[in-house]
């Protein structure tokens, strides 16, 4: 799999990261290197091996369904750029 600079721009846009053309070129080289590494790894026969979804061989501990959080709206909203009637305000989004 090979990438071009349009792919880099698109990935950056999806991640909401602003990249200049120079940065995009540098990133292209780095990402292509990473993909090369992955290609190398994909050459290994992994038949019958369960994909690893976490580096530790342990499973999720569960929490009891009990309310432990209290209302700290005032504290949290004291650092928000804009609030009104308890709502966090953000630039208008309409789908």
């Amino acid at each position: 799999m090979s990438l071009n600079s349009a792919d880099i721009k698109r990935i950056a846009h999806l991640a909401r990261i602003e990249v200049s053309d120079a940065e995009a070129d540098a990133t292209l080289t780095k990402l292509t290197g990473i993909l090369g590494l992955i290609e190398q790894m994909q050459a290994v026969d992994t038949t019958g091996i369960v994909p690893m979804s976490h580096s530790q061989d342990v499973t999720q501990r569960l929490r009891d369904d009990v309310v432990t959080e209290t209302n700290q709206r005032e504290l949290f909203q004291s650092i928000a750029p804009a609030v009104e009637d308890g709502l966090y305000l953000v630039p208008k989004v309409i789908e």
Partner: protein
Amino acid sequence: MEWEVVIGLETHTQLQTKTKIFSGASTEFGSEPNTQACVVSLALPGVLPVLNREAVKCAIKFGLAVNAEIAARSVFARKNYFYPDLPKGYQISQYELPVVGKGSMKIQVGTGDKAYEKVINITRAHLEEDAGKSVHGAQEGMSGIDLNRAGTPLLEIVTEPDMRSAAEAVAYAKKLHDLVQWIGICDGNMQEGSFRCDVNVSVRPKGSDKLGTRREIKNLNSFKFMQQAIEYETQWQIETLEDGGTIQQATVLFNPDSGETRAMRSKEEANDYRYFPDPDLLPLAISENDINTVKTEMPELPEAMKARFEAQYGLAHYDANALTSSRATADYFVATVDTDCDAKLAANWVMGSVSAKLNADDKEISESPISPSALASLIKRIQDGTISNNAAKQVFEAMWAGEGDADSIIESKGLKQVSDTGAIEAIVDEVLAANAAMVEEFKAGKEKAFNALVGQAMKASKGKANPAQVNEILKKKLGA
């Protein structure tokens, strides 16, 4: 050309837990904005999700209810997208390894002679978190964000594209709605968004086995709108294709005012959620033991109860079906029958008078002014011949109006049926004497005259004579 519509559903059910899926913040509906938005809901840096045991239990319950495979090991993944009501920049969901695998549900479509049953296959069901809510128009040029709902546990239930009409899709959605409430994992409140359906619709020439391009109708929160939206969308797709057009895959919204579906402005980048396993969450392990524990807490399921009603009480399939349409109705029926009254009579009363009255008063069965034991005491008075069916209807009305229990109403209204043979004989004798002409007609072979005589006798007894006895005595006296 004849067309066939193909429909699949994705349903988001909010699970009935006290707290969020990954934090100890309350999930209560309708609180002041952001008062239930904790550090995890707000996605402040450094916070970690901890999975709610109860949410997992709900998923297992659902898996058991639809005979699905429950994954011994399932994995949480990040679904990445940017929207202000999702402050992390990703939704924690499940992708490759969902908690619930393939299962199935049997639905009943239509009524009367045209009714049929169909099996709908469930592809999967997975756990995920709900997003917050955006409030538009709070301030010029700004949107308000309420994160109380962010992190509410959802079970997203996905079907195969098995439905072939709006009626089938609605029947499935209703059945699922009943089922999740039956097993107690979701309150089913559609107005509050506890049960939201996305419907995938495509059309193809009848007989084709290739799927057409689908459009997804988002966020339908009423069965009526679902029916209308699918019907409109199906027609629109057929007309578009017949006019030589093509269908573009799209997400559409239904406008209840116009009755039309309309494509949403496509996001400038096509969906590319870049799913990957969430490194903050370890794989979820569910043991046989966990499943067995949940099994012991499961209520009897509607299908099993239906079969039992047919076998144990000799109820017709249709009746058993109606009585198990909701947990509340089934519970009411069972509580009535548990008092040893006749099950078939009880079934008729629950589906007949009780349900008609509830409909008229717009009440749920749990709000019925007549309790199951009160209904049973009325039914027992029919069984033991104290009152006739007609009188029972009067007693029922009075009980509904809160005038007292069955026995006191029978007493105060003087509705007790006369079953004393001597008294009925006396009445019959009087009637025969006063209606000599009818007696002659009967003897001349006119069967109808017999019924007229029964009517006269019932009238003479002011409706209180036991009709079966009147019949019998009249027959004897007429030598019929």
